[in-house]
């Protein structure tokens, strides 16, 4: 069975064989389907199926309009309506797993930096601020990271999905600026909230962070295997 990544790679290679007219029509369908809320695997399978259909039809001298009608959007709307939607459980799983992964890596970074600083501290005297930073974690960081991840997923899926698909297809300067601008605004909003909150520190040695990171990493591998 092909993975989603293999299907995307195969699609990238195969669609180059289309005529200019066929390619522009097909890419319109591709953006529409990839930016919709259908499960990724089923969307990619469908895209591959209609791509092979189009290649075969063009090989026999038929144009894309004859195969899929005059309006790609009409075809896509009808097709997407027939595909299953992401279930609520699948959304919870996706958001939960992403938050879990982010927190795991936050602990990993705390552990890694902390242990490195402790090693350096054998030879260099450290300021109390640094010592404090490696033996405590600001509890707000967990909530902030979870919140930031949640907001990012919502923005990506609800607002930016089409921009991301376009960026993947055509990495133009205009697309990059637009995408970076939106992400920068989200980050500024997040940073302003962070500045307003009083720090709530909890003692956490880098070794405990490291142990939690290993547990989190094992959990993360298990969880990603179950996300649709």
């Amino acid at each position, binding site marked *: 069975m*092909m993975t989603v990544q293999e299907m995307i790679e195969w699609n990238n290679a195969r669609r180059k064989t289309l005529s200019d007219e066929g390619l522009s029509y097909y890419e319109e369908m591709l953006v529409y389907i990839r930016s919709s809320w259908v499960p990724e695997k089923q969307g990619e399978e469908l895209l591959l199926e209609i791509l092979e259909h189009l290649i075969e039809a063009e090989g026999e001298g038929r144009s894309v309009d004859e195969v899929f009608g005059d309006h790609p959007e009409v075809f896509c709307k009808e097709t997407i309506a027939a595909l299953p939607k992401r279930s609520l459980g699948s959304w919870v799983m996706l958001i939960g797993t992403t938050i879990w992964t982010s927190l795991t890596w936050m602990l990993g970074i705390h552990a890694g930096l902390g242990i490195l600083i402790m090693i350096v501290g054998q030879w260099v005297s450290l300021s109390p601020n640094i010592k404090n930073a490696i033996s405590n974690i600001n509890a707000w960081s967990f909530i902030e990271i979870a919140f930031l991840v949640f907001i990012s997923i919502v923005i990506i899926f609800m607002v930016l999905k089409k921009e991301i698909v376009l960026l993947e297809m055509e990495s133009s300067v205009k697309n990059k600026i637009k995408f970076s601008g939106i992400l920068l605004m989200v980050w500024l909003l997040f940073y302003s909230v962070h500045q307003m909150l009083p720090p709530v520190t909890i003692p956490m040695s880098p070794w405990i962070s490291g142990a939690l990171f290993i547990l989190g990493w094992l959990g993360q591998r298990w969880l990603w295997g179950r996300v649709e």
Partner: protein
Amino acid sequence: MSTYSQMLKGIMEGCILEMINQKERYGYELSQKLSQHGFPHISEGSIYPLLLRMQKEGLIEGSLIPSQSGPRRKYYRLTQKGEKTLAEFTHQWDALKRAVDNVLEPNT
């Protein structure tokens, strides 16, 4: 959607089930077969929403078969539910066809 196109989709669904029942087939092949058999005014692409709906209803299932160099095609086969639906369609179609024939050709 007009009554005609709704009826046509129902009949097309039955015919697709029968064609897949004969052997596993892929989308392009099915649309060509339908056209060869004289199904009128259907764009080739309209088979895909139909195939997706039939998969969602559990009548057929498909798998993408990779090959060394050629195209990767999604071949469809009937499920048990699909076989049952096909048997019902065949039975209902026979009855409907007889009834319509009786109306159109009352003296035969």
